[in-house]
C-alpha cells in the first residue's frame, strides 16, 4: 500500500491511498483502501492514510477514528493517531500517516516497520522504516 496526506498554509487537507492488497488474496476481495473512513479519510480537522491488514483496519475504522477522536474528544493529531494505532487495531496489523489542519504531522504503526517520509514548512523532515 502507498499513501499521502497533505495540508497547505490555509489548512486545506487531502488524503490519497492506493494498493494491490494482500499477497494470495481471494479474487474479488475488497480491502480497507477504498472503504472511506477505514484506510483513507479527510475532513476539516485532519487527513489520514492507513496501511496494513485491510480486514483489521476496516474493523477498527482506523482513519475515521483518528478524526473522531480529534472532533469529539479534543485530542491532538498525535494523541488521536497514537490511541488508534495502539487500541483500535491489533498489534502488527496497521500503520498510518496523518496531518492536521494546523500543520501537525504524525506517522505511527504497530507493525515492525513502515516505509514513511514527511516534511513540514518549519523545515522538519524525516525518512524512516523502523521505529526511531
Amino acid at each position, binding site marked *: *500500500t*502507498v*499513501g*499521502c*496526506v*497533505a*495540508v*497547505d498554509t490555509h489548512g*486545506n*487537507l*487531502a*488524503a*490519497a*491511498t*492506493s*494498493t*494491490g*492488497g494482500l*499477497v*494470495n*488474496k481471494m*479474487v*474479488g476481495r*475488497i*480491502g480497507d*483502501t*477504498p*472503504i*472511506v473512513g477505514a*484506510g*483513507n479519510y*479527510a475532513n476539516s*480537522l*485532519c*487527513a489520514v492514510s492507513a*496501511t*496494513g*491488514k485491510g480486514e483489521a483496519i476496516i474493523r477498527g475504522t482506523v482513519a475515521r477514528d483518528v478524526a473522531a477522536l480529534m472532533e469529539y474528544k479534543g485530542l491532538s493529531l498525535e494523541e488521536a493517531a497514537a490511541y488508534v494505532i495502539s487500541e483500535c487495531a491489533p498489534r*502488527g496489523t*496497521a*500503520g498510518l500517516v496523518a496531518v492536521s*489542519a494546523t*500543520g*501537525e*504531522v*504524525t506517522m505511527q504503526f504497530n*507493525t*515492525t*516497520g*513502515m*516505509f*514513511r*517520509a*514527511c*516534511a*513540514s*514548512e*518549519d523545515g522538519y523532515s524525516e*525518512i524512516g*522504516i523502523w521505529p526511531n
Partner: protein
Amino acid sequence: MGWAIALHGGAGDIPLSLPPERREPREAALRHCLQIGVAALQTKRPPLDVVELVVRELENNPNFNAGRGSVLTTDGTVEMEACIMDGNTKKCGAVSGLTTVVNPISLARLVMEKTPHIYLAFDGAEAFAREQGVETVDASHFITPENIERLKQAKEANRVQIDYTQPITKDMKKETPTADGDSQIG
C-alpha cells in the same frame, strides 16, 4: 500554521536485516516522492493535487505494493484499489478491482469529480476508465517477478501476506499456529 506532508510505502514485518539492495531503492523513492510533494506545496498547488501527484509516483515504482508492483491474487492476477478524499468538502472517490489502469488514484479522483457516485469497482470501474480515456496497459505490466515468487511462497504456506511480511514455510506454520488462521503478520 504551515504546510505539511506525509507519505508511506506500506507497513508490515519489515526485517531489521533488510539488505541494502532492497532498502536503498525504497528509501530513494520515498525521498524522491517527498521532494515532489514539497515542491508542489511550495508552489501553492492544492493538497488534492499534491496527494494525487505523489501517489501516482509511488504507484509507478515497482518497489511498492500499488500500481506496477501490486501483489497478486490467488489466481496470479492483480486487483488494484485506490481512494482519494478532499477534507474541506468531504468529496471522495474510490475504485477497486482494477486490472489495467496505470494510475488507480487518478481514476478514483475522476470518480469523485465526474460521477454522482463515490465508489466504482471491477468491470464498471474499468469501463469508466476507458470512457474517461485514462492510460491503460496489459495487466502483465503490473506483475513483477518478485511478486510471482511471493505468491508462490504464500500459496505453499497457505497464507495471505501484508506488505513486506516475510514468507513463512509450512514447517514454521506448524510451529506457530495462529488464532484466526489468516494472520501472516509479525
